[in-house]
Structure formats: C-alpha cells, structure tokens
C-alpha cells in the first residue's frame, strides 16, 4: 500500500475534484429533475410530452454518449458553457471558472443524465401520496400549482428521499467517467495514470481509487438503509 501513501496528494486532489463535480452535478440534477417532473405531471399536454420524451431519451442512452455530446456537441454549437462561470461560486469551485470548459461540460452531462432519474424518483414520491390528499386539495379550490406546492410536494419529498439518495449514489459512481472526457485530475483517471504512466503497482493503486469512491458512496448507502428501515417500522 506504500504506493498509495507515496501518491497521497494525487489521491486527495482527485478525491476533492470528484467531490466538487458530484456536489455541483447533484444540484444541477435536482434542478433539472424537478423541472422535468413538474412538466410530466402538469395539465399541459405538450409539456407532458416533452417531459416524457426527455426521460425516455436519457434513461435509455449510455452516459458515455451524453458525455460525448456535452463535450463535443456544445462546442459545435459554439458554446463553452460559460454561463456556468457563476461569479462567487467559481471562486469556491475553481474548476468552474477556468478557461478549459471540460469540467463545466461534465457537470452539464451528469446533471442532464441524472436529471431523468431524479424526475422518476420524484414521481415515485408523488405516487406515494394518497390520492385523497390531492383530491381534498382540489375540493377546496387549490390550483395545480398550489396543490403541488402546499399539499403534494411536501409529502412527496419524504417518500422520495430514499430513491433520490440512490440516484445520487449512482451519480457519484457515474462521475468516474468524467476523466475520460477531458477533465484532468479526477479520482479515477489520476489514479489510473499512476499505473499506466508512472508504472506504479496496479493493485494497491486500484484499491486506493476504490477506497476514495467507497468513502463517498458507502456511508450514503448505509444512511439510506437506515432511513428506509425506520420508515418500514413506522409504517
């Protein structure tokens, strides 16, 4: 394992970058997913159709292809995703503000892809709200927006926490692909380079990379199991 400790700075740097990527993409995915979910249950048929189409496309396409279109399709449209260079945010997450756009492209790809799954998780949460709640809300004259805001969504969030958590765990794992699309120095790729370029021994380094991801995913998974169990008991 000395290979890991010798290169601890590489691992820590990679871990930090992956963590930033996951954090920002999670926010993006929740944002996208909520919008799409609302579209899918809205009273306007074309919006429903768009929402459904969105989910169908992104659920059925490999993330690799989404990454490709983000990293090469956006530049083809003449965009470097500069709208993500948000003034204060980009000083905290320095990768967002630099000239190289690939970190921003990765955030976009992960957000769009995960957004489809977030939408489905939210819908499953809304599903769990007893129909009587929505009907009662309508009976007292609430509009669709009021109904969602005051009655359905607050209850849906609770039921959606566990599936949402799973979606976020999946996203953390998916972020390992970013390193193959121009983001230099993330956990998987910088570790990978230690093996292939520096000739460090394979197995310790791979264990190091794995630990990095497990630190992020396992506690979250355990937490979710806890919540789920407590719910089950309460019911």
């Amino acid at each position: 394992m000395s290979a890991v400790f010798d290169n601890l700075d590489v691992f820590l740097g990679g871990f930090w970058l992956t963590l930033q990527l996951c954090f920002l993409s999670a926010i993006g995915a929740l944002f996208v997913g909520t919008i799409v979910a609302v579209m899918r249950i809205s009273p306007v048929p074309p919006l429903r159709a768009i929402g459904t189409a969105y989910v169908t496309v992104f659920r059925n396409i490999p993330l690799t292809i989404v990454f490709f279109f983000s990293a090469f399709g956006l530049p083809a449209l003449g965009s470097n995703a500069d709208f993500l260079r948000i003034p204060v945010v980009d000083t905290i997450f320095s990768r967002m503000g630099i000239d190289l756009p690939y970190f921003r492209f990765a955030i976009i790809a992960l957000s769009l892809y995960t957004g489809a799954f977030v939408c489905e998780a939210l819908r499953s949460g809304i599903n769990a709200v007893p129909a009587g709640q929505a009907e009662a809300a309508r009976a007292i004259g609430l509009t669709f927006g009021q109904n969602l805001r005051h009655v359905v969504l607050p209850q849906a969030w609770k039921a959606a926490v566990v599936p949402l958590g799973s979606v976020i765990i999946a996203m953390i794992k998916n972020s390992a692909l970013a390193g193959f699309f121009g983001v230099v120095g993330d956990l998987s790729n910088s570790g990978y380079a230690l093996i292939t370029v520096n000739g460090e021994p394979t197995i310790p380094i791979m264990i190091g990379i794995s630990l990095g991801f497990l630190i992020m995913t396992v506690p979250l998974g355990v937490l979710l199991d806890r919540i789920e169990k407590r719910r089950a008991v309460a019911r």
Partner: protein
Amino acid sequence: MRTTRLAATFGALAMVLAAAACGGDDDSSDEGGAGSVSFPAGTTMAKLNQAQKLRVGTKFDQPGFGLKGLSGKPEGFDVEIAKIVADGLGIPEDKIEYTETPSTVREQVIQQDKVDIVVATYTINDKRKQVIDFAGPYYIAGQAIMVKKDDNSITGPDSFKDGTKKVCTVTNSTPAANIEQYLANKDQQLVLFDIYQKCVDALKGGQVDAVTTDNVILTGFIATNEDQFKLAGETFTEEPYGIGLKKGDDKFRDFINDQLEESFQDGSYLEAWKSTAGKYDPNDPKIPTVDRY
C-alpha cells in the same frame, strides 16, 4: 466540406496503396515462401515458419502507425513493418494475427507469450529492456506541437510554461508524460482524450490552443485539414521505436535486425513509410541505425 472530402480521398488512397503494397509483398513471399527459406532447427524463426503464423501486437488507434480501418483490418507503418518481418520468415501477410496492444499491456503480452512480436509505437528504453528485448529501432519519432494556422503565440514546449496556453493529447501516452513537464498548471492547461481526432476537434473549436504528439501524426492532420493548422517549432523529443520480443531470444532479435537492415537497403522500408505514416511528409525519414546491444 473540403476537409472531409480530403479525408475520404486520403482513405481511398490508403486502400489503393495498401492493395498495391499487398501485391508487392505477395510476390516476394512467393519467392521466399515456406519452402525456400529455411532456418536452423530449434530457433524461433524455424518454429514460426513451420507454424506459418505470426502473432503481432500492434495499436488499433494510432493514426499512421496502427489504426483499425473501416475494413476492420489494422493499417499503418507498424503494420507494414510487421509484414516485412513476416515476409522474412516466409509467412504470407494474411497469416499474420493482429492483437490490439495498448501501452499498458505491451510488456505483459510478450512475457505471457500471447504474441510473437510487438510493433506498437514502442519506445525503446532501459526500464523495458529489463523484462523484454528490442529489435530495431526502425524509426525515430519526435514529439511536436500543432496549433491553428494564425496562432503565433506558441513557438515550442516552453510556451506552456507561463500557465495560460492549453494543450491536448491522448490518455496514458508518452506525449502526455513529456508535455506535462512543461506545464505550469496541469489542471488548467492539459486535456486528455482517448483519440487524437477529439483533440483536433477541440483545437478547431478553440477549447485548447495546441495538440501535441508525434510530428508525423500531426503532419497527417495538417494535410487533411487544409489551411487550418501548422506545426509550432521543432520536435522536442526523440523516441526510438523498436520491435518488442521475448527477453533472451537473441537469435530472433538478430534475425529481425537483419530483416530491418535489409528493408532499409532494398527500399521496402521507404515504400512502407510513404504508403502510411509518411504520406503527407515530403521528407523521407532519417534511416535509423539498428542497435544490436
């Protein structure tokens, strides 16, 4: 679009040339077929000649050297060199079995005897010599930098030292390791993709300022993207490419070295070069001196 039509003609040309090269090779292998060449019993050459099969490790994603074509067969200079070796062994070129050997597995496949030789833009160095042996070199590569035609701000690798210029190359490659030493801030300057085509796209789109790798590969891209790119400065590294083989098989190594020297003499080397990697390079390559260590 101009560039693609050019690329298409380039592809067609490559096929015609390859076909021509095939014809030539077939002739020579008829002369020196299994019957007419004989090797001392017990040598690797005799064994391969008996088996009438040569297992070659090469790259499938290295334009000019070893790139899997639309036909599904690898094409390039490395492939041609392998054909020259096979020819010397009295093995027809359709009996060569190609295996993809990315950089990470090259030593491994030789040690595990999965291939007989590796011709895969394989830089000879002492660390590798500890576990395998090299015949050759058959080519001295040099890394260079490609920029947009109107960009005069980059003149060589030193231009990256101020930390503002961005450069692209492929993952897990020697060029990546070489250029990294010149970068002031790797995070903000380096982009890595799996294939060069993506780097060229990024250069076109302005996401990066330069692409760096072997000068011959870059010459190819400059020729197929007319009036868009140019080389900035000279080559700044020297990478002698050798043919990897099992450690300690000195007779086989001598044999391959003889083959290479013969091909340098009789023009088949130059022919192979011009039909593949050297297609867009007006200059003939400097013929290397075989290193019989």
